[in-house]
């Protein structure tokens, strides 16, 4: 065949491929469009959490409850939520410890250091970002954001490449040693969709953790946003976290 005929056939290839692509998209849409026959509509909700740093007593009950509710391995290498302790000294040095890996002894009191000007506990967990970097990097779409704002990991499709764990700026993810897939806090999705509170919020003795629906009207989290000055972790990374901190000290990373 001559050059002209060849070119004509090549040009026709593109619309042909386009038609095939459109047909396949339609087929895919039909698969996904069939809705679950339940009363819960995720588009009515946009979940978030509030943390009142000044209320946290560092008792670690939230960490224990999360592990019990969600089957997180007991070992001190895997946490869906944890608590940090900050001690800011008058000489400018800040010391941080994770009290969830090494809880403080209950039978004795550490000697008071009068040089410490501020000291407090900060609970941490997955921020369920509105603009999640972990979802962006997943090669197979195993981690995704639900319509109600929770980031989940499909343990049946995750290939365990660990890219999402690298991409999370907050250290919220880990590789579950039993399923060998990525894992993290789900805001206790199985509880909140039934109107219950996440386990960590349920057991917090001082109401340092507040769970709520940012789309709600008479909602604890919505009021929390009104009466507190809100900060989020690492705002410069533009992940748009949905865990809102009140009274967050500038030393907290």
């Amino acid at each position, binding site marked *: 065949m001559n050059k002209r005929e060849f070119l004509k056939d090549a040009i026709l290839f593109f619309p042909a491929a386009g038609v095939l692509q459109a047909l396949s998209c339609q087929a895919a849409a039909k698969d996904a469009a069939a809705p679950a026959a339940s009363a819960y509509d995720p588009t009515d909700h946009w979940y978030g959490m509030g943390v009142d740093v000044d209320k946290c007593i560092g008792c670690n009950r939230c960490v224990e409850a999360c*592990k019990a509710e969600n089957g997180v391995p007991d*070992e001190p290498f895997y946490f869906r939520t944890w608590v940090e302790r900050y001690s800011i000294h008058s000489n400018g040095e800040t010391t941080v410890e994770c009290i969830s890996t090494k809880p403080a002894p209950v039978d004795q009191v550490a000697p008071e250091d009068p040089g410490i000007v501020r000291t407090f506990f900060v609970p941490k967990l997955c921020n369920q970002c509105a603009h999640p970097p972990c979802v962006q990097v*997943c*090669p197979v779409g195993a981690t995704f954001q639900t319509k109600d704002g929770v980031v989940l990991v499909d343990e049946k499709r995750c290939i365990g490449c660990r890219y999402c764990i690298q991409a*999370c700026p907050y250290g919220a993810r880990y590789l579950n040693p039993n399923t060998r897939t990525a894992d993290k806090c789900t805001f206790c999705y199985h509880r909140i969709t039934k109107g219950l509170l996440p386990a960590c919020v349920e057991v917090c003795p001082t109401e340092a953790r507040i769970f709520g629906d940012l789309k709600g009207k008479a909602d604890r989290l919505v009021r929390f946003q009104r009466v507190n000055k809100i900060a989020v972790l690492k705002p410069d990374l533009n992940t748009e976290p949905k865990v809102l901190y009140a009274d967050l000290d500038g030393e907290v*990373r």
Partner: protein
Amino acid sequence: MSGMPESLHEQLSHQLSQVIGFIYPNEVETQWAILIVVYPYLTGIVAGAFILASLVKVFNVVEVQPIYRLALLTALAFMLVAGMPLQLHLGHPERAYEIFFTPQPTSAMAMFGFVYLWYLLGILLIEIWFEYRQQLVLMAQQARGVMKGVYGALSLFSKDVSPEAIAFDHKASKIITIIGIPSAFLLHGYVGFIFGSVKANPWWGSVLMPIVFLMSAIVSGIAMVMFLYILLSLLRNARLDMRCLDKIGLFLLVAIIVDFALESLDYIHRLYQSEESIKILGELVSAKLFTSLVIIQVLLGMFLPLLILVLVRTVRFNEELRKLLYFTTSLLILLGIFSMRWNVVIGGQLYSKSFRGLMAYKMEMTGIESLFTALVLLALPFVILTVLFRLLPPRWMDEHALPAR
């Protein structure tokens, strides 16, 4: 509660005890370990060897013609192994096909799968086919038994070895190489982008990362071909084309200078800007990466080879000494580039994203993610290369004294 493997528990307990300062608790585990250090090292050599080969075809550097086929086969051998460390590293290797079935377009890792496929199938194999076609046809004619069928199949049963057909082969080869150069850039640039796009990790997340990775890939590829050329001439007791070797040395020198300039720029830029992460990154280099970065990567892997290559060009050494110096230099460079991959991959996981602590990585000796597996994977391309040399002997055409056309 968990049935986690004993060896993993031991490794993590040890790593937890080695923590200095504060780390997010989940950071105690090193997510990307030795296998992920091996992978960019291998793909780098693929890209670099191809770029060296392209100098012959596209830029008409006739002096390096003797290593053209060696460079192509090196690229192929390393490319066949490059995907293995990734596969072995996965938590679920049996699900790896999902990267091709349901790729997420926003994921650099997913898109890399297609770039890899394109480069292997669309560039490298086709390039090698056009280069070897005439030889395959002739070998098919001369062979007997099974090999006749094998060579026939490899040549896709084409029969035309007329001067016009050969001329077309060369032209096609040139066109594919022209497409292949940006493809090679894309191949290893993408690997750099996989790290460079991670904003969560300031040791990785930098605009220069893809460029630095690419330049160091070119350096390692040229060094590997140089190393193999000298090694093969030793093993075969054949004469080395010193003009070719000197030319390779020149390109290596230029590549090292560019690579060094880029890496220095990265460090100077960081130090000058002095962002928040600079303190912990400084501690990272001095406490955890001093030997692997300052000594091995920079001094032994860059400065010393640079010195030797400049010396070889300025002082008149005899052939034997030059060969020895080139051999040593290429080995030093390969060691230095491997160390650079280690410093990027492992280094990026030895400090906490809270910027307040340092961790440790205890490399396992045996197991899937272990030194043993890494060494096997590093040796495997040489085994494959041996097989390729048997199957597609680079000098067959010369040895069968065909009339020059």
